[in-house]
């Protein structure tokens, strides 16, 4: 796996327990020589946010199926970047708003993103269990410092496969 620049690959169920186990594994794997503790923290933050986004927001083929499945990969694009990727199913009617949200975030510079974060954190609307989707993506964009990359692959009339890729610069 190392020769393919893959540090960790997980495919399966996404629960809080799985999130904590994957984090624990990631903490072990992401320790290249010369990585500062600030970088490790940044990557760790991105990993946590990406994993929990799948838990909270992914959908399933069968809506009665309460078990969320997905895909998670930590890779390297040496020498400069770690790449954190997630993949999960998503209802087709969520694609439009999600695409708009990511495009909006990608259009902002760091000052704009921090202002947006300030507005979102004080916003009372999304304080439910599933709330804060926007804040999570803004946070990822800030920590990444690069554009969030995404893709939607149609699966059937109801769902598509959504992948999100977050780059974290090692510099």
């Amino acid at each position, binding site marked *: 796996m190392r020769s393919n620049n893959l540090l960790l690959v997980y495919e399966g169920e996404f629960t*809080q327990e799985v999130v904590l186990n994957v984090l624990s594994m990631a903490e072990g794997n992401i320790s290249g020589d010369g990585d500062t*503790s600030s970088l490790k923290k940044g990557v760790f933050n991105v990993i*946590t946010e990406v994993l929990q986004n799948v838990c909270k927001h992914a959908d399933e083929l069968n809506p009665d199926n309460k078990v969320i499945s997905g895909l998670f990969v930590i890779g390297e694009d040496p020498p400069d970047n770690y790449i954190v990727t997630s993949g999960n199913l998503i209802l087709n009617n969520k694609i439009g708003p999600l695409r708009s949200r990511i495009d909006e975030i990608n259009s902002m510079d760091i000052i704009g993103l*921090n202002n947006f974060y300030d507005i979102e954190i004080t916003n009372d609307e999304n304080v439910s269990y599933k709330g804060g989707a926007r804040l999570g993506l*803004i946070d990822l964009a800030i920590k990444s410092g690069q554009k969030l990359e995404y893709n939607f692959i149609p699966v059937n009339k109801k769902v598509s496969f959504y992948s999100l890729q977050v780059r974290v610069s090692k510099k």
Partner: protein
Amino acid sequence: MELLKLEATEDTPQVILDPANKKFQISGRSLPEDPTEFYDPIIKWLDDYCLNPNPKTNFDFKLEYFNTASSKQIYKIFLRLKNLMDNNHELNICWYYQDGDTSIQQAGERYMRVVGVQIKLAKY
């Protein structure tokens, strides 16, 4: 007011709200699956505390990591602390961050900015 004490877990912080011993602290990691469920009792406790607080409250945050959902809950905690300040009680908030941890440092600066309270940022 009764003591509220929660031990740290893999995904929730240690919480000490102890007016009798004048100790108020939240420390560790915060990434619970349902942050509202975890933080609601804490926020309710603070609402009650604000009705009859100690003359002086020293509140320490020493968080290694918190997810964005937790950050919203922490914002709600800061709003309660601001109530204390607004009512002429002495409030000292200390936000600790590990040397080199710009993420936690910047989070402290953000809360100071958006809440409008004085926060001492302390490196350890």
